[in-house]
């Protein structure tokens, strides 16, 4: 990250100890670190320019918030004051000392709903003050209780450096059998989107259990694919914490609220996206701390009536990662999203550090307490295939991740799966895509391509496709108005009845709207599971979600576990 040899490097011509040389060569020293610089917002959660909390209500309207009079509100202030804060309770909630609210978040004797009765009346500056009193373990305690859905889950990225749909269909099938509840893709070449989104949708429905799918694109295109039923939910609806950056993103809280209603009106699940560091990165943080600005995003999301938020710095993780207490602030932003009763898809989704130790440490504040989606997402491919610019964890880490789940008895949503079973679903998924492309008269997929993709680790192991033909095919999908229902028909007509039935079950969910409730996923039995029918009931030791029964037995399995009855053997 640095262009010049850092002071003390072996290249500076000074004699150094062998110890220093060893340390210089550690991967962590490839990471970028900077001093705090509050004037430009390079500060995690404690800027001298952050406002002091305040609220004043007159005639049922907030007339002052965090030291700003209503006439001087920017559009974010006004949206939050009018849509996100409970007018009835705000003055009472704001009167509580921040440390008392922080204690409620940590105290097992206080229930989740008692906390929410207070947080619903808090302003951004007050929520910041609460977070500032909490250390990382207390933040994790808060997360454990405030996560909306009782059962944690996980999300995968399924992408291909070549935008190869055969790879994506295989990765989606493998991600689904490994336990991911959602799979997300994006593109190198955007025009490939229809074919890759179809591959993701089909692959995720192969085998037991289904994952909901998403294709991250520019807002209008993402909405169109969702409306057609080629994707099942949407996530890349960005919000920002300062007015100039929001405007640079070509949106306002009102345009985003309108978009939120648009998704719901078509029965499509949706969450917003934000994260610490985005305003600094976009050059207009107005001197505020990253966490203060992120809390404004969280409350814009809540005010828009969106069920959830993807946050945890996301693609800007290098920014909070570079400043002191940055990763504590990232954990705090997840906790605050949960504490105001939003679904939280909690980051861990971008290349963050060269250091394996540091990557793991960054993951623990979400993985240990459990979040609605521990990663948003976990790269189901090798790093080089991840078109979201890498993730904090990738396919190379599957066995490590499963081992950490087993070591600590914590549920990150994944499981070890035998190679035979993985090859079987990858094969079936690729054959299903081959059949669907053939049925719909799209560019054909050869048996040799399938064989390569099933046994591949990444796109370097694949047979190349005719990209120009594929792009013509992708355009046809849009021109011919192919929908999710056409995929169902194609699958059913070509002998993939089980896959067709799963996909139809997902599409039928749009009619019921059950997935519009907070933190909704589909269970392996194809039933909706959300914060309504699986509300987090953690209230101290022996309560709440703990891996047990069949799930715990499944988590005990790893690639190599020695049998107790026969030490010469490994457990299947």
């Amino acid at each position, binding site marked *: 990250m640095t262009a010049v040899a850092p002071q003390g490097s072996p290249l500076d011509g000074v004699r150094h100890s062998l110890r220093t040389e060893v340390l210089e060569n550690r991967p962590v020293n490839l990471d970028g670190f900077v001093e705090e610089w509050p004037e430009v917002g390079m500060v995690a959660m404690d800027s001298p320019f952050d406002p002091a909390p305040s609220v004043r209500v007159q005639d049922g309207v907030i007339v002052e918030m965090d030291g700003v009079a209503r006439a001087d509100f920017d559009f974010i202030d006004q949206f939050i004051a009018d*849509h996100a804060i409970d007018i009835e309770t705000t003055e009472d909630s704001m009167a509580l000392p921040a440390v008392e609210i922080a204690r409620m978040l940590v105290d097992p004797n206080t229930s989740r709903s008692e906390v929410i009765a207070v947080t619903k009346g808090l302003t951004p500056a007050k929520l910041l003050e609460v977070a500032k009193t909490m250390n990382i373990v207390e933040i994790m305690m808060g997360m454990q209780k405030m996560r909306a859905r009782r059962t944690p889950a996980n999300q995968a990225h399924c992408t291909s450096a070549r935008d190869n749909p055969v790879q994506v269909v295989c990765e989606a099938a493998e991600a689904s059998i490994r336990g991911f509840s959602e799979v997300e893709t994006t593109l190198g070449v955007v025009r490939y989107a229809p074919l890759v989104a179809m591959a993701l949708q089909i692959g995720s429905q192969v085998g037991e259990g289904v994952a909901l799918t998403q294709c991250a694109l520019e807002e209008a295109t993402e909405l169109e694919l969702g409306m057609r039923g080629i994707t099942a939910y949407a996530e890349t609806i960005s919000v920002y914490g300062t007015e100039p950056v929001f405007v640079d993103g070509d*949106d306002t809280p009102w345009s985003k609220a309108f978009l*939120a209603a648009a998704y719901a*009106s*078509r*029965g499509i699940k949706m969450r917003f996206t934000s994260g610490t560091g985005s305003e600094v990165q976009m050059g207009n943080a107005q001197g505020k701390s990253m966490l203060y600005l992120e809390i404004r995003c969280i409350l814009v999301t809540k*005010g828009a009536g969106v069920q959830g938020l993807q946050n945890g710095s996301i693609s800007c993780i290098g920014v909070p990662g570079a400043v002191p207490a940055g990763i504590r602030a990232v954990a705090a932003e997840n906790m605050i999203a949960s504490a105001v009763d939003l679904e939280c898809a909690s980051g861990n989704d971008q290349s963050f550090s060269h250091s394996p130790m540091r990557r793991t440490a960054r993951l623990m504040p979400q993985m240990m307490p459990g979040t609605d989606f521990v990663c948003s997402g976990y790269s189901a491919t090798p790093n080089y295939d991840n078109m979201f610019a890498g993730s904090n964890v990738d396919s190379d880490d599957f066995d490590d991740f499963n081992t950490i789940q087993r070591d600590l008895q914590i549920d990150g949503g994944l499981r070890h799966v035998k190679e035979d079973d993985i090859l079987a679903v990858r094969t079936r998924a690729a054959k299903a895509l081959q059949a669907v492309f053939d049925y719909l008269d799209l560019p054909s997929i050869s048996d040799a391509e399938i064989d390569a993709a099933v046994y591949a680790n990444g796109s370097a192991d694949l047979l190349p496709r005719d990209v120009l033909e594929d792009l013509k095919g992708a355009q046809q999908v849009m021109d011919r108005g192919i929908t999710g229902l056409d995929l169902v028909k194609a699958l059913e007509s070509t002998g993939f009845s089980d896959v067709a039935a799963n996909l139809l079950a997902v599409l039928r969910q*749009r009619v019921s709207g059950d997935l519009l409730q907070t933190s909704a996923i589909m269970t392996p039995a194809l*039933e909706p599971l959300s914060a309504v029918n699986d509300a987090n009931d953690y209230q101290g030791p022996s309560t709440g979600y703990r891996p047990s029964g069949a799930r715990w037995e499944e988590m005990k399995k790893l690639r190599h576990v020695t049998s107790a009855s026969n030490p010469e053997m490994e457990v299947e």
Partner: protein
Amino acid sequence: MTEPDLDPAVDYPLSVNRRDLLVTPTGKPLDAITMPAVMAGDVDAADLRISPETLRLQAQISEKSGRPALGANLRRAAEMTALSDERVLQIYNALRPNASSRAELEAIADELSSTYHAELLSALVREAAEVYERRDILATSE
């Protein structure tokens, strides 16, 4: 038809516990969306949409679960079912910063109210028009 009074603890998920209440916008019961019906061509994309009535049931569940903002979004969504995909995208684009004049936004608010009886959406757009003017993010008139 009066809206049924739901209990989130008993009735949710509606697709499991209250299939009797679920009807597509085209008037088909949820149970009519079967594979044989799909293959016979009796189901089209319009059948796989949510109806305004169902969105209001889900809004009721959100509100009774202590989520009034989510409920309000679902009630706006219920109104939006009447708009075509194309009109939805046009209005979204009109709400972007510096994209519309105050008069244009007010015309949209009027249209939402008079053509679609979408009073909640109309109020949202009207509110945006006021804020955009105060924050100077209306389209500059030529």
